[in-house]
């Protein structure tokens, strides 16, 4: 029994009725959500809206990992926190909000940063991973661990007036396998090398508009919910071929102009690459869970290699 045959409680029926009558969701999709486990890495501008809609939809187990505390300058965009919770751990603040929205899911706080040492043990307990973080080193770490654990990854990022979203590693293929492809890409397949540090500013340095990062986080929730509800991460599913055309969604918000043909663009990306460090040919020999724990690769060094600090980045 995969848990999709039990009855729904009266409260579940009432609470989820409007989404259950959508064609393609139904009781089966709802039970897949209730039995599903999503990890949200980062409780900031992406993680807040993503968490609201994932909790609202009734995903049964929701983990949130973040080591930061709520600050006043977060609140223009991090709408799952509040002025009265400034100084609280972001994870606890967000879960407070989510629990009042929907008390039914199990919320699991991880109130500390994701590290090469703790990543595998945390990610292994979830079905779908959301990368809502804010730095290149953590993004490469998350993707590598997702490849090794076979987890689908919904990755988004946003700075200033731009946003990006891509679903990776879905459905997951074993590391190093290239036959019977194309297989879906990992983060390194799409973004082989990190930018020089001065060209990869954070939202703190370069600024960010709330509706831009919010929209990307909400789109992440939409992708995560469809993956769980339609079981798109399971290799046997008929949706597989569809998800194998990897697409990078680009959002270009224009503060001085209207929505237009360039506002949203869907870009065709390549699949798994033979030359990929993490999932390509021979990758089993260079990327392992044990190695990551022991400091290989060194993500900080990898993302700082090209460091030639200059004023003002992109």
């Amino acid at each position, binding site marked *: 029994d995969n848990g999709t045959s039990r009855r729904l409680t009266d409260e579940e029926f009432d609470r989820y009725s409007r989404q259950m009558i959508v064609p393609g969701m139904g009781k089966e999709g709802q039970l897949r959500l209730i039995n599903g486990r999503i990890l949200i890495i*980062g409780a*900031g*501008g*992406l*993680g807040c809206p993503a968490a609201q809609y994932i909790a609202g939809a009734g995903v049964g187990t929701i983990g949130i990992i973040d080591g930061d505390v709520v600050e006043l300058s977060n609140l223009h965009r991090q709408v799952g926190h509040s002025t009265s919770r400034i100084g609280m751990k972001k994870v606890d603040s967000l879960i407070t909000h989510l629990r009042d929205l929907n008390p039914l899911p199990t919320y699991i706080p991880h109130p500390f940063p994701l590290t090469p040492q703790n990543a595998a043990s945390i990610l292994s307990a979830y079905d779908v991973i959301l*990368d*809502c*973080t*804010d*730095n*290149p080193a953590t*993004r490469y770490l998350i993707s590598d661990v997702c490849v090794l654990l076979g987890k689908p990854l919904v990755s*988004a*990022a*946003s*700075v*200033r007036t*731009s*946003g*990006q979203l891509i679903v990776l590693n879905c459905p997951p293929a074993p590391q190093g396998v290239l036959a019977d492809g194309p297989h879906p890409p990992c983060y390194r397949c*799409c*973004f*082989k*090398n*990190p*930018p*020089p540090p*001065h*060209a*990869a*500013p*954070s*939202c703190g340095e*370069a600024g*960010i508009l709330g509706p831009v*990062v919010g929209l990307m*986080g909400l789109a992440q929730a939409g992708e995560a919910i469809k993956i769980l509800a339609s079981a798109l991460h399971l290799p046997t599913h008929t949706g597989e071929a569809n998800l194998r055309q990897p697409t*990078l969604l*680009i959002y*270009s918000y*224009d503060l001085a102009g209207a929505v237009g043909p*360039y506002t949203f*663009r*869907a*870009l*065709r*990306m*390549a699949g798994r*690459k033979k030359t990929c460090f993490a999932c390509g040919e021979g990758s089993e020999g260079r990327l392992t869970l044990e190695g990551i724990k022991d400091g290989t690769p060194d993500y900080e060094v990898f993302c700082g290699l*090209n460091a*030639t600090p*200059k004023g*003002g*980045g*992109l």
Partner: protein
Amino acid sequence: MGDSAADDSKIPITVDFSGGLEILFSNQRHYALSLPAADKDGSPSTIKSLVGYLLKELIKDPRQDLFVLDGHIRPGILVLINNADWELEGEEDYELQAGDNIFFVSTLHGG
């Protein structure tokens, strides 16, 4: 593309910038350009030719290293040829066609 159609030594293309790269190009995200159809040595214009043209003619910001490093597009910039990753199309050696759209996107990491 209209008025350059008669001059077959030019290729009309459009070039877009996103993810912050537009800041290097006068904060303009969309350009309609008319490129020489061939390089000085007579070989067809490629993405590499386009990058040279952008550095020579279009970039206004002195921080050229945010676009090109060691003669190549810097790490952390995706290049899309007609909405497809340039790795699907031959990367810098792709020969430009009339009407092509070339899209440069800086990879973002914030959240």
